[in-house]
């Protein structure tokens, strides 16, 4: 164990990054990486690729629940606000309508539901994705600029229990990438 305060000590690399030219190669590689038993992996592509997260073994259930919660909170909040202000806080007879005019409360309740759900969809997605995150080790790789253009990348992280600087590189090179690079931390 090296001195954690030593500024000059080389950090262990973030992982190994393989670059592919086509989406087929990436999906094949992702499948093989999974069969090989790697867990700490990620893929990068310029557009959403179907089936890629299945190949990498990610699952997803939290976001829809967050959105449901946001929508319910918005709708209930909106209705309670209207009820509280017009029945309890300042009851006022307008046009012979009851204080608790539920048909008239409907539109605002609806808008608040949508607002709550939409805000939680967007901010929930960013939060779960840990964004904004201006710095990430993969950006250190020169050719990673192309991940937003026309190249596909697959990364195996060094914290993976199966990771081995030599063996993993060999394995990645066997998948037919155009390049395998080490990602500095």
């Amino acid at each position, binding site marked *: 164990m090296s001195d954690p305060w030593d500024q000059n000590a080389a950090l262990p690399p973030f992982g190994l990054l393989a670059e592919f030219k086509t*989406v*087929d190669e*990436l*999906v094949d590689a992702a499948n093989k990486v999974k069969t090989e038993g790697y867990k700490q992996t*990620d*893929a*990068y*592509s*310029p*557009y*959403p*690729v*179907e*089936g*890629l*997260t299945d190949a*990498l073994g*990610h699952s*997803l259930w939290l*976001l*829809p629940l967050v*959105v449901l919660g946001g929508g319910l909170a918005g709708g209930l909040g909106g209705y309670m606000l*209207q009820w509280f*202000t*017009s029945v309890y*806080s*300042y009851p*006022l007879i*307008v046009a012979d*309508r009851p204080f608790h*005019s539920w048909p*008239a*409360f409907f*539109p*605002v309740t*609806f*808008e*608040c539901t*949508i*607002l709550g*759900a*939409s*805000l939680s*969809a*967007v901010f*929930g*997605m960013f939060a*779960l*994705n840990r*964004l904004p*995150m*201006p*710095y990430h080790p993969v*950006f250190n790789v020169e050719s990673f*600029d*192309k*991940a*937003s*253009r*026309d190249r596909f990348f697959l990364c195996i992280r060094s914290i993976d229990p199966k990771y081995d600087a030599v063996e993993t590189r060999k394995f990645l090179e066997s998948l037919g990438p155009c390049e395998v690079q080490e990602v500095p931390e």
Partner: protein
Amino acid sequence: MATVSPLREAKEGEIIAPGHTFGSVTDKISDIVQNDTIAIGWLASLAFAFMMLNILAISAAYLLYRGLGIWGINVPVSWGFAIVNFVWWIGIGHAGTLISAILLLLRQRWRTSINRFAEAMTLFAVACAGMFPLLHMGRPYFAYWLMPYPNTFGLWPQWRSPLVWDVFAVSTYATVSLLFWFVGLVPDLATLRDRATNKWTQTIFGLLAMGWRGSAIHWQRYEVAYGLLAALATPLVVSVHTVVSFDFAAGIVPGWHTTIFPPYFVAGAIYSGFAMVLTLAIPVRQVYNIKDFITTTHLDYMARIMLTTGLIVAYGYGIEAFMAWYSANKFEVAVMQNRFTGVIRWEYYMLILCNVLVPQLLWFKYVRTTPSVLFVISLIVNLGMWLERYVIVIGSLTRDNLPSSWGRYSGTIWDWGIYLGTIGLFLTLLLIFLRVLPMISIFEMKTLLPEAHPHGHGHDTKNHGHQESVK
């Protein structure tokens, strides 16, 4: 800058010209934003739009200085141009959300090349619409009184008033549209960041992209969030114009209080919105030479949606006139008499001509696929939809139940100034948008390419380019 050209022009039914690659799509769209030259045509247009924007600045400044008396409004018409223009602008905005949300849910892939542009249009149109209620308050600095907040008077908004519903509907709409637009932009901002050669633009795009890196799990959450937003925006867009129609229908002014208003207003909004998308898209695809992305197929589909919604609007006019007779209610009859033979008749005839008769040309495929003709029709529909709101607002307010409260109305030069000024605001914002942000979604365009889908995933690449109409 590398010149990018597809193999050939897009044929009928194709939504992207063949021969494009991931790289060429990226370059072609980003180069419009990321180049060091400033086109003289763009600059001239911006100068013109900015001039119009200054009309808004002057009119609004004078309005604040002198007060609402400079407008043509007076009892009985205290809702004049302000409401007409507000509804007109909000309606125009609706096409953007329709394209980005409803067509996404309907899996209409042709929406891809126009959604960004149309969403921007929505935002700017809502911004223009928002000007009118604000200025109409006379004291815009008290706009926050519309919001429910605890105050020393102990007062709250009047929840049984559709005008309060409108505040909630429009502000929710503006917020959700902005979110939708921004979420769609994030991956493209990352592309621009990675392509940037200039430190400044790299930093700005980098900040806005928030460190997007195209990770697979991010993409998946992104798609879920985007789909949910679309599913939320769809009822939202319907509710917004429904609530706008309640501004009229919830009252009992003859000609306003009629149950068909919500669906008919929604259809009218989409109608005018698509007219505005065409008004803008036809010159833009010409100037920026992006006919390989916005093909004649797109124009055809948009024209079909215009025809459909136009027919629903015509149904609204028809059923209103029929029901006025059927009701045997003298006030309802008087409204229709006023429209057919009364003081508002010329506006009404013009509206029927612009909104019902001329658009019937869209039944012909030739008209739907000829940009110049379509452009003219879209302008006519824009005019017609403005007239529709004018007839509804002015026609009914000047001829109320009691003849003693009848009146007359005409807009003053300041009414027109503010109206033209908002068009200036709209065009200015739009021109700046075209120059600084990608007007077509780069990452979504890539998914239209045949090589975008992994094989063995049940993807029929032959289907590429094949689309069904939306009518």
